[in-house]
């Protein structure tokens, strides 16, 4: 035996060895003689193919059989035949009467009328059916009837006129059924021809057992594994990919010395809007943009904060003119799902004591907008929010933090363009350059909190740098997701196979 042959034999698994003696037979016979089930037989054949011992050929054929309605019609005639038989007895008959006498369902009746009309067997005049077919046409079997009698049959064996009939029947419900049959055959390669039919004995070690380890001696040999042969895929426990991305972003803020804030998703207008100097007639406070909660009134904070916020809105505070309107507590007590995490920043500011400064805080959490749900809109998404509170910080530091964060998120180029928010001045819109798509992505806003925001909350005008950008866009970009809904669709197959977040 040649060296090459020996190597092949060393690699043969027990299953392969079991079927080699019968390789000159058909697959069914191999199954019987080797007493392997069909799945194992196929797998063994696949392995043999990998070793170039056989070549597998897969073919498929289409079998046409009767569907559930087809079985019924075969025994009880097609509805159009029933109608025709009725018309043969009553040459002119009204539509209603024909439907009643034919005992067909409304749908069957309509279909039958159509078919007979197409065959030019009938005409419909003034709500009446008139039979126009000749005697011999009526007695002759329809092509469809012929076909039904032939079934089951292989599609390739159909005559052209039967094929036409098949197309007609396929359009009707459950008359025919097409099944695809996959066939596996194989032929022997030159190596296979040498091996087929041989009994292959082996004293190679198959599985390593405690027994063998105990009695190990170096004359023993292992069967060689085919390291290329495919293995069934597995999947394990893992974090949701969105949370993986968030963990990463959280790490960045923590590494920069930020403290994590937390806050409620259900929030009063006071914290979501008023404390952030958003006038009570601002469009964002309308129902079509924000999810308000029915029949609930929220609780306002201390009188001092409320009256300072009221003053900031109405007349202004320390050098500001304010919005010049009458501020109402009722509006501030309305409860909604927070539209941004900036309300958490506002609450955090209000909780700080002078001894807590300087301070840096962040939060990455969900926010809500009353939006429709489609590939580019969603009603909830993540926002990455931060504030830096210190007398000495300035606008260029805000740009510094944003630049650092987005660099670590993989965006080296960042652009800051003027923007407008009621609660920041100066305000910027953050854009990052997407190297792959060669375009700028708009991520959201940032700025320095206005004195009308900081004075009521902190008691004095301490500088506060603030930002809050959408985060979902970065996640969809990393995972190459086109449809925003995929982020939270929880398709387990997707979740199991999603690549890990590595930056």
């Amino acid at each position, binding site marked *: 035996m040649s060296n090459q042959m020996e190597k092949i034999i060393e690699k043969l698994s027990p299953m392969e060895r079991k079927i080699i003696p019968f390789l000159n037979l058909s697959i069914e016979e191999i199954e019987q003689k080797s007493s392997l089930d069909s799945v194992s037989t196929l797998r063994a054949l696949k392995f043999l193919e990998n070793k170039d011992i056989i070549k597998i050929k897969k073919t498929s054929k289409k079998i046409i059989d009767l569907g559930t309605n087809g079985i019924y019609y075969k025994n009880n005639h097609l509805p159009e035949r029933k109608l025709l038989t009725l018309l043969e007895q009553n040459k002119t008959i009204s539509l209603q009467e024909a439907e009643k006498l034919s005992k067909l369902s409304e749908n069957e009746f309509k279909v039958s009328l159509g078919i007979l009309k197409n065959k030019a067997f009938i005409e419909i005049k003034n709500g009446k059916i008139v039979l126009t077919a000749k005697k011999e046409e009526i007695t002759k079997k329809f092509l469809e009837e012929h076909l039904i009698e032939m079934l089951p049959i292989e599609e390739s064996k159909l005559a052209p006129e039967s094929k036409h009939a098949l197309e007609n029947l396929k359009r009707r419900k459950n008359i025919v059924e097409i099944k695809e049959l996959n066939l596996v055959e194989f032929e022997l390669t030159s190596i296979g021809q040498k091996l087929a039919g041989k009994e292959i004995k082996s004293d190679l070690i198959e599985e390593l057992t405690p027994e063998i380890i105990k009695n190990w001696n170096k004359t023993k040999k292992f069967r060689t594994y085919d390291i290329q042969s495919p293995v069934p895929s597995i999947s394990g*426990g893992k*974090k949701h990919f969105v949370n993986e991305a968030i*963990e990463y972003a*959280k790490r960045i803020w*923590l*590494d*920069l*010395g930020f*403290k*994590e804030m*937390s806050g*409620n*998703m*259900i929030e009063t207008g006071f914290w979501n809007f008023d404390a952030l100097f958003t006038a009570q*007639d601002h*469009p964002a406070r309308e*129902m*079509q943009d924000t*999810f*308000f*909660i*029915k*029949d*609930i009134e929220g609780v306002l904070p201390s009188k001092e904060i409320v009256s300072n916020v009221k003053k900031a809105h109405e007349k*202004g505070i320390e*050098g500001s*003119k304010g*919005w*010049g309107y009458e501020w109402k507590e009722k509006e501030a007590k309305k409860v909604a799902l927070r539209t941004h995490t900036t309300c958490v920043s506002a609450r955090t500011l209000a909780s700080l004591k002078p001894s807590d400064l300087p*301070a*840096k805080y962040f939060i990455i959490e*969900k926010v809500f907008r009353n939006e*429709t749900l489609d590939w580019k809109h969603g*009603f*909830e998404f993540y926002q990455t929010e931060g504030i830096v509170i210190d007398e*000495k*910080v*300035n*606008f*260029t*530091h805000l*740009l*510094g933090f*944003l*630049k*650092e964060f987005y660099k670590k998120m993989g965006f080296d180029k960042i652009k*800051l*363009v*003027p*923007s*407008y928010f009621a609660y920041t*001045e*100066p305000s910027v819109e953050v854009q990052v350059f997407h190297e792959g798509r060669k375009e700028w992505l708009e991520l959201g806003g940032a700025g320095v909190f206005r*004195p009308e925001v900081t004075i009521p909350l902190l008691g004095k005008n301490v*500088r506060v740098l603030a930002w809050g950008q959408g985060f979902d866009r970065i996640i969809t970009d990393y995972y190459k997701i086109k449809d925003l809904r995929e*982020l939270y669709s*929880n*398709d*387990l*197959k997707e979740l199991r196979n999603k690549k890990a977040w590595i930056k």
Partner: protein
Amino acid sequence: MANVKFTRSELEKSIKLTSDVIEKIELFGVPIESITDTEIEIEVLPNRPDLLSIQGFIRAVNNYLGKEKGLKKYKINKPEKNYKVFIDSEVKNIRPYTACAIASNLSLDDEKISSLIDLQEKLHSTLGRKRKKVAIGIYPLEKISLPITYTALSPDKIKFIPLEFDKPLDAGQILQKHPAGKEYAHLLENFSKYPVFLDSKKNILSMPPIINSNETGRITNETKSVFIECSGSDFNALKKTLNIIITTLADMGGKIFSMELIYGKNKEITPNLETEKIKISIDNINSLLGLNLKDKDLENLLPKMGYNYNKGKVEIPPWRIDILHEVDIIEDIAIAYGYNNLIPQMPNISTLAEETKESRIKRKIAEILIGLGLLETSSYHLIKGDEKNKIRSESLIELENSKTEYKFLRPNLLIPALRILTENKDNDYPQKIFEIGKVFLLEKNSSESKVSEKENLIIYMSPSNFTEIKQILDYLFRLLGIKYSLKESSHSSLIEGRSALINANSNIGYLGDIHPKILQDWNIKMPVAVLEISLSNIYELIN
């Protein structure tokens, strides 16, 4: 926010759109949405409604490009005889104020008329808060006789042909039939009288904030002079809006006249283009922007944003609505300086990083469960209307006007979990899953209702059973160091005799096998075991 389109050729009579200019426009703070050979579409931020007209836009960009220096001056002519508007006290509780002007010498073509109407509509929807705060009317002076009266009449006394109609309608019909009437009727709700502008012959010019008369309130190619009124509740906003319109008309070549407004004993003259001057401190500028600007720099930077500057004092254009505080001017200085010229810096502030305790515990729990081979899901906080019927909860919180089928806040994590199992019934089993997230309940007591927002953990597995889910609970709590006991109990979604309450100082959750009836309702074909606990309790238990 509003997007506006300008004709490119019209704009290019004043400003050539070279790539350099396009870049400058973006640096100026006007995002360009699209640009073609014939048209440019820009986004106007809500603080700059003065950029909504092509004239206002050109004025500002010419400043920014340095082609025009500082504040543009407009001449306002004194009111002529009869240039008066009498404001009747009837309007006091409805729409109390109006600010008015007259412009003559106009030569209007179709394009100018359509750009005026466009400006009017954009001002209505932004600054005007959908006509609630400001509504604008423009009338051909040739068709009306001065002076004007602004008053309110009972609806049965109001009858005129509204714009786009050919028959007179009364006030009620206008609110019911006219498109503008239907859209804005809510602004007149609960009033027994509706505001109207009348000319000296008692002809109705308009019924603000709804619609003008087709006879006296429609400008055409023949119109040479116009009467302009802005009505609403905030006199200051009305004056600013009027300033935006009359400067636009002046830039179209119009001659502007002011009018005398007679509010009972008080007299006002509008429009008023007198400028406000405010002091600005160079220290404040440099401290906020992190720059080292000198007074001389301000002389260069402020005129680029349309201001005049002289020795610490800034003169503010009378069409700017957004200057409430020094910081607003400082932002403009930064824009003039160019955001692209600012150098990002990292400040030297030492602070200690800290994650919340809740985050730390959640991460630990996730680690333990992932170690057991569980997959994490992340679902919406909202649930659908039909889902609330499948798993009933009495203290459900409903959202107002949701645009999707998701209309309620989730009261537990079981509903999203069952949805996920339903949607994954054709995916590989076993499905061993967990999720951590907030749940929302309404807490009612005799006097008030409030919302409770808590964090839960759910573990759900299919196919699975009570023993397996209890094993997980046991392992998790052993690692977290929490002692617990189980108490037999019934749960509407679980099989009786195979469900339990989890007690650790108090009831903190439940576990068990989901009842086949529930599985059927959700179209789930495999057995499911579930465990849901309140993390808020766990946070307290871990010290």
